[in-house]
């Protein structure tokens, strides 16, 4: 198996390399790809949409339809992880671990034993793959998470003027919640950001995106043609700021969708669908 695999791979690689000799050089500014379509985007991004970052304009305006499906792919991944993994079993795990808060003692209670009360202030439940409780990690992450979220909002809002945008900001927002879940435990995170919230917010994010396009359709223009939003925003027709605001609105939708789906996938993957104990 190994020999055939190695041979296949070497032959494929050699063939591909041989035929790659006709391709344009690396860094060639006059290749067909660099001269046919992209100058139009670079020259017209400020004029059409008043957005300096041409990548954002192409992503959300010229090829905004593709991006809508990209966001749907993200939502599909969340749905698929939920669909495949989630189990609402009521069987209890073989052993539960509790920590006695004043003394730091660990208790292990076997199946069938008497568990401490749910809201006991003295005993907190810890995961079976337990790392020692660390004051430093918990409090450092508490500080970092707030700044990560602030930076994420900055990235979303500045997608027009610097590298950034909805996807990047959404991933940062999602990772802040995942950081909270890693430094504390999964149950505490679930209490603050329930799975239902994540699922519904993800769908709402993509709905914001396609809803913006649908509003354009209702106003008479083609789908996702943000110019049709000018009367709603109080701008003259043909004002590039209408496109700029349209792009911003879809970026917000993308950020919501990506954030919720990242958290949703983490919930399902880290606990293998049981939402009982996480990483």
């Amino acid at each position: 198996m190994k020999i055939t695999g190695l041979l296949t791979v070497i032959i494929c690689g050699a063939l591909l390399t041989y035929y790659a000799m006709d391709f344009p050089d690396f860094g060639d500014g006059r290749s067909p790809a660099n001269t046919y379509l992209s100058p139009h985007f670079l020259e017209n991004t400020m004029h059409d949409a008043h957005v300096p970052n041409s990548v954002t304009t192409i992503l959300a305006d010229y090829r905004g339809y593709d991006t809508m499906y990209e966001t749907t792919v993200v939502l599909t991944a969340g749905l698929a992880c939920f669909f495949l993994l989630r189990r609402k079993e009521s069987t209890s795990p073989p052993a539960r671990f509790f920590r006695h808060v004043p003394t730091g003692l660990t208790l292990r209670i076997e199946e069938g034993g008497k568990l401490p009360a749910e809201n006991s202030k003295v005993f907190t439940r810890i995961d079976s793959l337990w790392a020692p409780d660390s004051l430093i990690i918990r409090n450092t992450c508490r500080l970092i998470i707030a700044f990560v979220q602030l930076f994420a909002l900055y990235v979303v809002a500045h997608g027009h003027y610097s590298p950034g945008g909805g996807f990047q900001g959404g991933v940062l927002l999602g990772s802040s919640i995942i950081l909270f879940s890693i430094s504390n435990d999964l149950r505490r995170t679930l209490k603050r950001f329930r799975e239902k919230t994540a699922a519904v917010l993800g769908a709402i994010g993509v709905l914001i995106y396609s809803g913006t396009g649908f509003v354009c359709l209702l106003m008479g223009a083609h789908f996702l043609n943000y110019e049709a939003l000018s009367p709603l925003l109080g701008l003259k027709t043909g004002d590039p700021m209408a496109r700029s605001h349209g792009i911003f609105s879809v970026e917000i939708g993308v950020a919501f969708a990506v954030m919720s789906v990242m958290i949703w996938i983490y919930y399902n993957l880290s606990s293998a669908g049981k939402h009982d104990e996480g990483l």
Partner: protein
Amino acid sequence: MEQIFTAMGAKYNYVAYIILMMVGLYAMIVKSNLVKKIIGMSIFQTSIILFYVSTAYKTGKTIPIVPYDAHAAVQAADFINPLPHVLMLTAIVVSVATLGVALALAMKIYRQYGTLEEDDIHEDLRSEEGKS
């Protein structure tokens, strides 16, 4: 022969992407652990992203964020090509989504068979079929 080496020197980005793609393909074909196959798939998809992004580069030019002056004329030749970057944003997202679904399926398989080695799973299935 010499021609090929000089050509490869000028087009080393294609050689890089081909090597990466073959590494990923080899991992997917040869390895028997499911997680290693998933990692190979991820490397395979990343190589294609590398290919697209490397075709967008123009030597000595800057990132495609034009100056914030609505009336200045923009010379497209001063900026690198933005279109492949946009296409690859989509491809990266798709690759992450595929990774998520693949890991969920691998987790389900682990829950069912207790192992992630494909050879052990096939042995398991063969013994089951032998019994029934």
